[in-house]
């Protein structure tokens, strides 16, 4: 194995064991073994095309949407193999936030937050729905901004607000893990810093796995970092250690901006 260090993680919520993913026999993720600690922010870093998104999407099995995909190895959520449970059930435990805000354009702000219940046909009482919407919007610090326009279309919000709405939509199910793929790359610096503050708060209740190619973002908000290169996990450890004292020369090169 090429991993220079494996962080000792107690109480992992996710453990990947020799996970490999190939598109048409081209491996995009190679033998990744990693344990992700509960209530932390874990950043996945690496140059573009190194397999960050593929790895992240393998965690809620969104990668299976592509054709000719093969998945080898194991991924456990609280000790249960996620490839042996129904994908639909798994995804309700693993919220996902995408690169570009993608609220449902036909739905109001309220309906966007509750979309997971509505689209799945899960019946809830009105009072319960109201509570879920308010709690989720408060969690993403959007409640005060939108509480008077809950029934307006979500697409009228600014980009940063839309992205927070999408986070709220993921939180409405009270998932255990939130997977985020470069969630701030389409946002301006102010909107970005709001979301970064948010993530630090959210980790009290959730575990966050964050793909980012913004190193300073990883340094600011993550507790653990993975550095990937050409599909391999090169280094994994406490963010602080990795940034001050990287072990693998490739990590050091990346962090000092020599490539990527």
């Amino acid at each position: 194995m090429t991993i220079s260090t494996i962080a000792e993680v107690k109480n992992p919520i996710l453990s990947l064991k020799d996970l490999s993913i190939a598109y048409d026999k081209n491996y995009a993720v190679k033998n990744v073994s990693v344990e992700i600690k509960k209530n932390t922010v874990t950043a996945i870093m690496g140059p573009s095309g190194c397999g960050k998104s593929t790895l992240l999407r393998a965690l809620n099995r969104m990668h299976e949407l592509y054709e000719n995909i093969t998945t080898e190895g194991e991924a456990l959520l609280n000790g249960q193999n996620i490839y042996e449970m129904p994908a639909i059930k798994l995804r309700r435990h693993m919220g996902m936030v995408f690169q570009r805000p993608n609220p449902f354009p036909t739905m109001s702000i309220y309906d966007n937050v509750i979309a997971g219940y509505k689209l799945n046909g899960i019946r809830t009482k009105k009072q319960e729905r109201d509570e879920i919407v308010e709690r989720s919007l408060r969690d993403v610090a959007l409640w005060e901004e939108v509480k008077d326009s809950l029934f307006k279309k979500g697409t009228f919000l600014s980009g940063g607000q839309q992205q927070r709405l999408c986070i709220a939509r993921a939180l409405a199910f009270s998932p255990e893990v939130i997977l985020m793929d470069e969630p701030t790359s389409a946002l301006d610096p102010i909107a970005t810093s709001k979301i970064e503050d948010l993530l630090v708060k959210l980790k009290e209740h959730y575990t966050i796995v964050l793909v980012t190619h913004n190193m300073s973002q990883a340094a600011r908000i993550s507790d653990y970092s993975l550095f990937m290169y050409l599909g391999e996990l090169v280094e994994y450890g406490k963010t602080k250690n990795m940034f001050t004292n990287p072990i693998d020369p490739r990590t050091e090169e990346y962090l000092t901006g020599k490539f990527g």
Partner: protein
Amino acid sequence: MESIHALKSQDHSSGRLRKDKLVLGGVIVLSLVTISPIILIIWKLVAEGYRQISLDFLIKNTPDTFEAMTAVANGELIPGGIANGIVGTLLMVVLASALAIPIGVLTGIYLYENQGSFMANLTRNISDILQGVPSIVLGLISYLWVVKHITMGFSALAGSVSLSIMMLPMIVRSTEETLKMIPESLKEAALALGVPYHKVILRVLIPTGFSGLLTGILLGISRILGETAPLMLTALGSSTINLDMTKPTSAIPLLIWEFYNDPNMIGLIWSSSLLLMAMILILNLVSKQLAAKRR
């Protein structure tokens, strides 16, 4: 030297200006040529047809040729109207839509979901070919299937079947194109919430593309509203309002054809055409409006 240079460049720019003017003139002439037929048609229809338009025109059946002859001889307006045609057209268009919309939308979804698969490509090609089949042939087919074997005679049902086959490929195509325009990210957003695939289609993609689907449907309806040839072989016509799908039924374009063949009824041709044209124009404008709103 300098002045020659200046002169030259001036010359050059005035030449270009002349060219620009020529192109602009050409464009204006060509667009006038393009829009003049429609303006002439509408002008003619209104000028010739407005006199016969009245409440009676909408709620009364066609007069018989003798009534019309007497009125024309006395220099009066032709009595009666085309209610039998209006009702027949609505009846057949509604049934044709009820047949074509569900089948067309489902087929469109199938094509969208199976891009590149052999069966999908085959279906798409067949649908495209169907779009090119002359409408009279669709009338013949429906005559063989429905008139000969199901209703045992000319019928509104046979008319609807021929119209629905005509509408089908348009709906298939517009459904597929509409779904293709919806960003992948919305599908992903729904799937990531654990929504099963069929519900993603029904509850996210269809509502998101709804105005696009509606545009295709309205254009399809406006296409079949004026169809005459297939109805001649299927619905045949009727001088009174008929609501029985298994009986011969009238339609506005059928009436226009009948009026054309009866010298006493000539006066009703223009008003009937005006009404038909107005219905089609309105449908087109509404669908344009919907399409614009989508952008």
